[in-house]
Every structure is written in C-alpha cells, then in structure tokens.
C-alpha cells in the first residue's frame, strides 16, 4: 500500500467502535473484520478527510516512524476490500 496516496472506507462498510477497537462489516462481501487498536480506528475514520494515509496517521496522533506499520494494517483491510484507494476527488 502506498501511504502517500488517498484511501477511503468502502461505501458498503459499516464501522462500530468497541472498547478493544472496532468491528467492520462489509455488506457487499458479508465479511467481518476486527480492529484491535483504537488508534487504527482513528486512522480508518480519518481517511475520508485526509489527502494521504500518512496524513490520516498524523491526524490520529501517530508518530511518523510508526506510519508504515499502520500502512501494513490498512493493506490487510484493503485485501478484503474494506478500504479502497480513492481514485479521483
């Protein structure tokens, strides 16, 4: 995943915050994912308003050095179409 590009939650995905992180449900694929980290949740929720993944991480208070690690977590979500690259603005 290129963390210097813009990404979004898939429009058919619902996010439900939970004490341990969050649940994501994709109504198109009927698949469930779990986020085990509230900061990752903040990144996911901030994607729509951020020009890049890196910017979303920074807005969520994640140190620059940790951004690639969150990028890898988002790549897992991308593999199940939970997040998709924003092609045009």
């Amino acid at each position, binding site marked *: 995943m290129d963390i210097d590009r813009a990404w979004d939650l898939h429009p058919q995905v619902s996010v*439900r915050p939970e004490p341990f992180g969050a649940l994501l449900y994709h*109504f198109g694929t*009927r698949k469930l*994912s779990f986020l085990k980290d509230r900061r*990752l949740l903040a990144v996911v929720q901030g994607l729509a308003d951020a020009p890049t993944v890196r910017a979303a991480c920074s807005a969520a208070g994640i140190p620059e050095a940790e951004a690639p690690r969150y990028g890898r977590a988002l790549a897992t979500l991308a593999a199940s179409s939970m997040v998709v690259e924003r092609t045009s603005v």
Partner: protein
Amino acid sequence: MTTVPATVTPTPGPARLVDLFEYGLDAPICLTWELTYACNLSCTHCLSSSGRRDPRELTTDEAKAVIDELERMQVFYVNIGGGEPTVRPDFWELVDYATAHHVGVKFSTNGVRITPEVATRLAGNDYLDVQISLDGATADVNDHVRGAGSYDTAIRAMANLRDAGMKNFKLSVVCTRHNIPQMDAFKEIADRYGAQLRLTRLRPSGRGADVWDELHPTAAQQRELYDWLLAHGDSVLTGDSFFHLSAYGEALPGLNLCGAGRVVCLIDPVGDVYACPFAIHDEFLAGNIRQPGGFAGVWGGSELFRRLREPQSGGACTSCQFFDTCKGGCMAAKFFTGLPLDGPDPECVQGYGEQLLAARDGDGSALPKPSQDHSHRTAPAAGRRTGPVPVTLTRRREADRPPVSACAESPLAGYRPD
C-alpha cells in the same frame, strides 16, 4: 454461535481477540431473531420446538421498534429464523424495513415461499441473504428428519434462486449420523446451485432432545467431519458450531468461542431474550424486549449476561491439555443432556463426555425441558397410508334392553342375528 468468516488486522494487540470477546461487546455481532413459532414442517430435531403460532408474538410495530434499536446499536445484521419466518404475513414488510434501516438480514427458510418472484426480489438486494435448510443430500435421508416432500421444496427453492441470479446464498445442513457420509454430496449440491455450504451441529435443544441419542454423530463420524472441515477450510461455513472438535489438535477456522450472551443472543417470537438460539430455557432467559429499556436494556443490564461475560470455570476440564481450544464445548449441549456446565461437552472428542453420560442417573425424565413447546399437536406420521379407512358395518347389540318376557308380541323377540 453464528458468525461470518472474519479477518483480524495484524496490529499489535495486548491479547487474542477471543480473550477480549469473553468479556462481551457493547452490542451483539449478530443476533438470531425468531419471528414466529409457526411452521409448515415438523422437523424432528427442531431447536425451538416450533409448529403453532403463539398469540403473544410481537406485532409488526413492536418488531419495527426492535429494528430501530438494532440500528441504533449498530448491529450489522440479524439472522432471522423461526418457525418458518416467511409465513408471517408481514415478513417482507419487516425485511424491507430492516434493510432500509441499515440492518442486514439473513433468513433461514425451508424454501416453501421461495417462488421465482421472491427469488428475483432477493437477488436484487445486497442487504439480504438467504439460507435454505436441507438435512440430507438425498430425499430419503432429508425427509426422514424434515418430513415428506421437504427435500423437493428445498431443491426447488435453490433452483429458483440460481435462476434469478442470486449468488452465494447458503445451503444450511445440520450434521447428523445419517448425513455425515454425504458431505461431498452436499458440497456438490451447493456448487450446482451457486450456493455456499454451511454446516452446523445437531443440538439436544427443543425437539432435538428427543432424537439426539439416535441422530448425533458417532465418535468416528466426528473425526470424519473434523478431517473434512479441515480439508475444506474457509470455503465451508460452520457458524463456529464445531469448536469442540478443535480438541483433535488443529483449531478450525472461526473464533472458536462460545458467544452466548457475549457476542450473540436470541430474540424469540414473543420477545424473550435468551443467551443463545440453542438455549430456550428459563435458566438462560435474560429478559424481554417488551420491558422498559427494550432490547438494549436486556443486552446491557441482564444479570445473566453479566455472569456469562466473566471468565468461566473450566471445572473438570481445566486439567485437560485441550481446554484452551475447546473451552469445554457447548453450554446448551451440556445443559440439555444433564451434564454439569463446568465440565466436558457430551460430544467431547476425548471421550470424557461419554463417560459422564453413561454415569447419569435415571431414565432421562429429570432432564431439563425447554420452556416453550409450540409443536403441532398432530403431525402426519411418516409412511402411514392415506385413503379409505376400512370399516365393518354391524347391528348395534341391544344388550341394555331388559330380557324378553313371555308377553313380548314381536315375532322376532329374542332373535339375535350373530
């Protein structure tokens, strides 16, 4: 429990998800909602002892209020069942209401109402999924449990769904002693109709208690099923039914957790909330959605649910090396077979459950009975012939008359044509 295949993002976490789930969630991940006890069939293993409608069932408005609550709680989808849910006159109205309010619906049906028109409607809605129940890959095995004609009904429904372009609906099978040898055949049927196979465990719940001894898989069949499930991995759904089989070694795909009261629960047709769909008994009754606070009040405030969300004692199982994967198995299976809840599952693959079953006292009359029974009072007996009933016409014996006296004038007095 029942859930969809899930993936976990590999961010560093303090604990395994399954350990976090043991403490419960703010709302269920998914929820089973039985809309009616009415059913056109009388399956011998029915979990909810369904058959006749209950006059106290939720009204359309009450059901819509439940949907509003589920939307507020962000319950992504409900598993609607029964009874046969499609026989409720407001079934489609409720389904449309749910999907319009962002609550996805997956409903279980025997297929009786899945006409070509209904199939077209289902295929057109992403928020709708359907599960066709079939308990034999051949009519003889299926109809023995589900009743005459039910195999043909299910196959016709699946053909209608395929022809309407519905993709990836579910073919739902309860695994029994009779159908375990048919797993490959079930997979072929699912593939033929573009469906995904879903296998679940036979539970001694509802009328299932009456046939469990006869129908539950043998120890050798459990091993056969486990190997089959491992070989097929994620392509076959199990609703996390078989986590007790993990004690064979490798864990099966899924959460491998008893979700009762933690991540799942049941709303029954009269609004009673139970810890899970297999435990319709007062012991597992958390409350009713008609009480103040509604469903959210029950989920968040029930004393029973609070207890289920505490770490459970493994009891006799604690010393077993497989306890960490099988967690002592299914609470409902233990309860309805009269085994202690903090001990092994009746189908424990190490054989500890069988030993306990053999050591039970009495003839089974002391076993807990489900708190609801809506079974049809008369069910057509399988294999009984229909048609004319032979009757022999005879004269009524007039034994109640006084003895014939010497004064009787009738020429036939005292004559009995025997």
